[in-house]
């Protein structure tokens, strides 16, 4: 499966083994690029005790599939994968995984960054953070995420 939205944790060893295998009817990959995002224990100088991830079921899967397919079209990839967790998470938990395989490293690393930049600005997920003293706050958008995405529109 190429995109997944799930409450459960994911196992990097299994995903890596899956990516390492040749896609049906193709050569074995020469490169695997993986990005994993984790829950931080600090944000904007306050401690984070837990985080809750909400999403828009249906639209989230549609958006992630579109981002995956755009990467597959733009770069010569063997496989691409996006996994995003929802529900309650704690510091150091895995939140998101994006990965791609290709014959040479550049396509895989660029496609991974591209998928992550689009995920952060277009996929309908929302984080709320709980601090140690029980205060819950919605995380606000970062301008740097929009800047990161715009680089893919300037270059071909």
């Amino acid at each position: 499966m190429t995109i997944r939205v799930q409450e459960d944790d994911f196992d990097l060893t299994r995903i890596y083994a899956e990516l390492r295998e040749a896609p049906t009817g193709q050569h074995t990959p020469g490169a695997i690029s993986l990005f994993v995002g984790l829950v931080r224990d600090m944000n904007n100088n306050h401690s984070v005790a837990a985080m809750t991830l909400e999403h828009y079921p249906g639209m989230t899967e549609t958006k992630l599939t579109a981002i995956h397919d755009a990467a597959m079209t733009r770069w010569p990839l063997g496989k691409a994968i996006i996994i995003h967790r929802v529900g309650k998470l704690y510091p150091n938990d895995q939140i998101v995984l994006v990965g791609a395989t290709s014959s040479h490293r550049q396509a895989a690393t660029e496609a991974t960054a591209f998928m992550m930049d689009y995920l952060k600005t277009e996929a309908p997920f929302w984080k709320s953070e709980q601090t140690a003293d029980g205060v819950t706050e919605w995380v606000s958008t970062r301008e740097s995420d929009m800047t990161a995405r715009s680089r893919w529109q300037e270059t071909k």
Partner: protein
Amino acid sequence: MNIRYFAWLREHIGASSEDIAHDQTMKTVSDLVDVLRQQSTGHQKALADMTLVRVAVNQVYVDIDHPVTAHDEVAFFPPVTGG
């Protein structure tokens, strides 16, 4: 029409979804927002500043002047913060 709310909009409104009867005066998302703001103080607070709100019609991002029809699913939510 089915209206969906997420994150702090859902909290202000106190519901994740509601059904609103479509009438002929509701031509665009903007017309719908005017009607929704009359529903409660929570709606008014959530939809007060539409520059803070993103809109999807039938799960596709749209602008506030996008047309709406009786069978649309219209979602209101803050800019996304996943990843």
